[in-house]
C-alpha cells in the first residue's frame, strides 16, 4: 500500500492464501497495491501468480509495484496534468502496451537474477487508474473488475481471458499477448462511478455470477455479472467506516479477516484471494 496524501477515496485491499496453499504451508501468490497521488489520480493493481510457477509470489508483487510506480510517474508528469489532457482510448492502449512490456521486462530481469526460467514467474495483472469520472483499465489474464454506477448498480469492467481449458489463461510473462492484441484488454470510460473492485479469480465464485448451464454449445456460460448482494453491503460498510474516520489500518485489518472467512465461499476458496475495494 502506498499513500502520499490523506485519501480522497475510501479503500481497502489485501490478499489471503487459499486452502490449497495453507494446507501445503505455501505463501500466497497474489499481490495488490494502491497508489493515491497528489495530482488526484488513484491507481490500483492486482496480480495472480500462477500456481504452477515456483516464484510467482515474487513476480506478482513485482508486477503490481512496477505498474503502480510507472503510472504514478505519468500521473505526476506535465502532460497528464495539463489542463487539456484527456485520457482517451488510443492513448491509454498505447500507454498500457508500453507499461505491460516494462512489467514483463522487469520480471525477466528478476528471473535472470534468480537464475530461473521465466515460466516460474508467470502472473496475470489488472490495473485501473482513475481521476474524477475517468476510469482506465488494462489487464492481461483472468480476474474480474466490478464498477458501481451512480444508481448503485454494479457491472463488469473487464472480460477475463480464458484459454481452451477452464483452468488456462495468459500471463504477462508470455510472448503471446505481444503479438495478439486481444489478449491485452484496455478500456477508458468517462461516466460517473461511485465504486470499484479489482479481484483475482480465486474470489470470483464468491462475488460474481460466472457459471451457469448453457442451453446450447459449450456446457457453461459466463455471464460475468458482479453480484450486487455481495458488493453493495461491502461498499456501504466501507463508506461508513471512512465517514466515521476509522483509521485505515483498522479498516485493512477488518478487510484481511473478511478475505479469510467472511463468507462460506471465501472460507472454502481453494485458490488465493485478493480484492481491492474502492468507494468514491
Amino acid at each position, binding site marked *: 500500500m502506498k499513500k502520499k496524501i490523506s485519501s480522497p477515496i475510501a479503500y*481497502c485491499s489485501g490478499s489471503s492464501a487459499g*486452502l490449497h496453499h495453507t494446507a501445503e504451508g505455501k505463501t500466497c501468490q497474489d499481490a495488490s497495491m494502491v497508489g493515491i497521488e497528489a495530482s488526484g489520480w488513484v491507481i490500483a493493481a492486482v496480480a495472480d501468480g500462477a500456481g504452477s510457477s515456483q516464484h510467482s509470489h515474487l513476480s506478482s508483487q513485482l508486477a503490481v509495484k512496477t505498474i503502480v510506480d510507472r503510472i504514478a510517474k505519468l500521473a505526476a508528469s506535465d502532460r497528464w496534468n495539463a489542463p487539456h489532457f484527456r485520457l482517451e482510448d488510443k492513448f491509454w492502449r498505447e500507454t498500457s502496451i508500453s507499461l505491460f512490456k516494462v512489467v514483463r521486462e522487469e520480471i525477466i530481469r528478476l528471473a535472470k537474477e534468480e537464475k530461473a526460467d521465466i515460466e516460474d514467474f508467470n502472473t496475470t495483472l489488472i490495473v485501473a487508474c482513475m481521476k474524477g469520472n475517468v476510469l482506465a483499465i488494462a489487464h492481461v489474464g483472468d480476474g474480474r473488475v466490478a464498477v458501481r454506477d451512480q444508481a448503485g448498480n454494479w457491472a463488469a469492467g473487464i472480460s477475463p481471458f480464458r484459454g481452451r481449458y477452464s483452468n488456462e489463461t495468459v500471463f504477462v510473462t508470455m510472448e503471446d499477448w505481444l503479438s495478439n492484441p486481444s489478449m491485452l484488454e484496455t478500456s477508458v470510460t468517462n461516466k460517473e462511478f461511485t465504486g470499484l473492485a479489482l479481484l483475482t479469480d480465486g474470489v470470483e*465464485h*464468491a*462475488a*460474481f*455470477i*460466472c*457459471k*451457469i*448451464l448453457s442451453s446450447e454449445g459449450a*456446457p*457453461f456460460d459466463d455471464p460475468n455479472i458482479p*453480484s450486487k*448482494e*455481495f*458488493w453493495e*453491503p*461491502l461498499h456501504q*460498510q*466501507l463508506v*461508513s*467506516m471512512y465517514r466515521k474516520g476509522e483509521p485505515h489500518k483498522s479498516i485493512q485489518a*477488518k*478487510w484481511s*479477516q*473478511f478475505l479469510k472467512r*467472511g*463468507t*462460506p*465461499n*471465501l*472460507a*472454502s*476458496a*481453494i485458490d488465493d484471494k485478493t480484492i481491492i475495494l474502492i468507494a468514491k
Partner: protein
Amino acid sequence: MEFKTQDTNENYEEKTLCVFVLDCSGSMIRADRIGKMEAGLREFMKEIGDDTATSQCLEIAVITYSAEFQLVVQPTLVERANLPKLVADGPTLMIPAIDEAIRVVEERKKYYRGMVPYRRPFIILLTDGEPYPEGQDFAGVKSRIQEGESGAHFTFWAIGVGEANMAFLTGLSVRPPRKLEGTKFMQFFEWLGNSMKIVSQAPSGSKAKIPSPDDWIEC
C-alpha cells in the same frame, strides 16, 4: 462494524443440498470403516463433479463428529468442496452434530430464498454406534427431526454400519433407518450419487423416483 456480506450463488440453477453427518468415533477404525467411508464419499464427489448438470445443482456439506462436531465442508458445489482426511478417534457426539446439520440446512435455505429455487435438502447420518457419552438431547433432536420431516423442511436418512444401534436409529428417524451390508460404502455412495442426479434433475415440482438400495442394504 465489521465487513459482512452475502455469499454469491454461483449460478441460478435449482439447488439440492445434501448434508452428510459422519461418525468419526474410535470404533470406525474397525474394518477400516472410516477409510472406506471417506473413499466412497470422494468417489461420490467425483461422480457428481463429472456430471455436467448435477455438478451445478447439487451442494454438499460435511459434518464430522467424535469428541466434538465440526462443519468440515461448508455448503458448496462438489467441485469446490475440500474434504479433509477423516480420522477415527474418540466418543460419539452424534446429537449435537445432527443439530448442527439442521442449522446448516436452515441457514442455507435462507441464502437460497430470493436467489435460486431449491429442493428439499437431505441430511444423511452414517454411524456405527449410538450417542456417547450419555446426556445428549435425544428427545430434542428427535422432535426437531420429526418437525423437519412433517414440515417438509428436510429429509433425514439414518444409515447404520457395523454394530450400529438400529433400534436407537429407528427411534430417532421418521424414515426407517437402513443398515449397510458390511462395509459397502462404495455401493452406498454410488447409489446415492445416482439418486441425487435423479432428484436434482427431475422437473421442478415433480417427485423423483430414486433407485432401489438393494446393492448395499443388509436384509
